């Protein structure tokens, strides 16, 4: 049993087989990369291509298909479009006529920038999450100074998230089976009753969880593996990555 667990653990850690980069460096690099994406001006299209290239390179190193990385990131597009689609119609300045619609050029650039930035940032995050198991990610965040209580709560929430989601879907399924076909707003009360039941179930579950935690010797803090020492080579990887990003942006004149 113990050996089985260890093998699985090692397997998941070495998902980024060729690099096996320290999780703290992974988090820092992801964060800095996203900050770089967000601070790039919309009309610097070459820079956005380079970002997409770097993400693809990371996915190739981790042996993950690009469809997974970019496909999962598509989820951000509906929000981006809903919020920003109106912008080209209402921003002033020079306009361009497109299929009989008068669109502001500045507004179109804002729209394009927002869509590219949110999509690439989400892809970067998907890459990190796909190659890093959750427990390792939480250890890394803890190593970077996130308070232990918050980490424990995050771990517990993530653990029971899918349980509660399944309960919620079961409740909704049952309501539909009883003929719930919502059409107008006051029917939100029915959703509210489902949610009330859901909360009571989560409350009773918390009591059981606490009993189980206490039986296993819970004392204020959840037990967790100690992180390995933060090697200077891993820190150097972050420095090198930042150096690379800055030099590319300087070379292309993309650093404001």
């Amino acid at each position, binding site marked *: 049993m113990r050996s089985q667990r260890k093998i699985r653990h090692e397997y998941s850690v070495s998902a980024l087989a060729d690099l096996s980069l320290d999780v703290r460096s992974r988090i820092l690099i992801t964060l800095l990369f*996203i*900050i770089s*994406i*967000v*601070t790039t001006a919309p009309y610097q299209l070459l820079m956005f291509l380079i970002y997409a290239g770097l993400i693809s390179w990371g996915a190739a190193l981790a042996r993950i298909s690009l469809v997974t990385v970019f496909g*999962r*990131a598509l*989820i*951000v597009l509906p*929000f981006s479009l809903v*919020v920003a689609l*109106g*912008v080209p119609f*209402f921003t002033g300045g020079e306009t361009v006529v497109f299929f009989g619609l008068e669109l502001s050029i500045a507004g179109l650039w*804002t729209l394009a*920038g*927002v869509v590219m*930035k*949110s999509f690439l*940032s*989400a892809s970067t*995050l998907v890459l990190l*999450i796909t190659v890093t198991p959750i427990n390792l*990610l939480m250890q890394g965040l803890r190593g970077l100074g996130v308070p232990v*209580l*918050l980490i424990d*709560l*995050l771990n*517990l*929430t993530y*653990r*029971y*998230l899918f*349980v*509660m*989601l399944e309960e*919620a*879907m079961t409740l909704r399924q049952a309501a539909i089976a009883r003929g719930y076909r*919502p059409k*107008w*707003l*006051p*029917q*939100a*009360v029915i*959703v*509210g*009753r489902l*949610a*009330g039941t*859901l*909360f*009571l179930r*989560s*409350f009773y579950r*918390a009591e059981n*969880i*606490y009993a189980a*935690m206490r039986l296993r010797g819970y004392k*204020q803090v959840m037990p967790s593996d100690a992180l390995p020492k933060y090697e200077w080579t891993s820190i150097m990887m972050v420095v090198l990555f930042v150096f690379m990003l800055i030099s590319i942006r300087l070379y292309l004149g993309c650093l404001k």
Partner: protein
Amino acid sequence: MHIPDGFISGSINTASAVIAVSAISYALWKLKKETYDQPHKVPLLATTAAFVFAAQMLNFPIGGGTSGHFLGAVTAAALMGPWAALIIMTLVLIIQALFFADGGITALGTNILNMGIVGGLGGCMLMRGIRAVLPVGKLGYLTSVALASWASVILASALCAVELAASQTSPLQIALPAMVATHAVIGIGEALIACAVVTAVIAAHSVILYDCPVTVSTHHSHSHDLKRTGIVIGAGMVLALTLAVLISPFASSYPDGLEKVAEDKGFIEQAASEEQVSWQHSLFPDYAVGAVEHEGISTGLAGFVGTGLVFVAGFILIKLVQRRSSVRSEA
């Protein structure tokens, strides 16, 4: 309302991240003390966060074929208290951003500010403020939950629109009315769900509510209550005035429903010519203080004074009602 990466400018994200981190640190410090005495609250916080997450997946219709979803900030505050609500919303937002690409990493601070601090802490403050002036009991409690839920959704969406406009992502004249109008409707659903959840909890065990109306009515200490009411009214007043001053200059350039209709139908000129005298001599013609030159500042000032007047009027009204009800209860 979950803002992705790339929508908000760096300075706004940094500022809101600083606010979010300090508020979360304080909340964690408070919860650490609380969970030291009551360690069973640790899994309860986590399952409540999981509950809020799951409940956000239950869509409700808002008409026109579209649907809204639950936010849960005020519900969490009613169930677990304000600081726990902030942490619960933070947990939900972090997990949504990290694992579901719902809301950006660089915009996390801004999202926590909108939904956790303004939605959760601000919503809880509103809930207590409203409850302080309503009769003690289940009905008053539910009313406060409903009103605060509705207002919290609107406040969070208005702040979201202001942030988007300040980042020059979408113009305020469009973003603010659109966001507030949509969320004024979604807020009704939020209020209905919040009330249903709280009712279910009261029916099962009212003890698990953070401050349940049953204990409030049995241990009624008048002086303590008065002091608390004072604090809450002061805080509510500050919040309302801030909103009036900060938001009214932006909002006022957009005609309100009646003015819009009046303009379209052409009866605004007619009304103006007939009532010119009284119109000019009203206290705030078109909500601006005439003596001040700058339009934005003038409108803000009018908002400030107007809110103050409404507050005073409301206060007098409530005092009258309270006196009458206390006379009745003595008799």
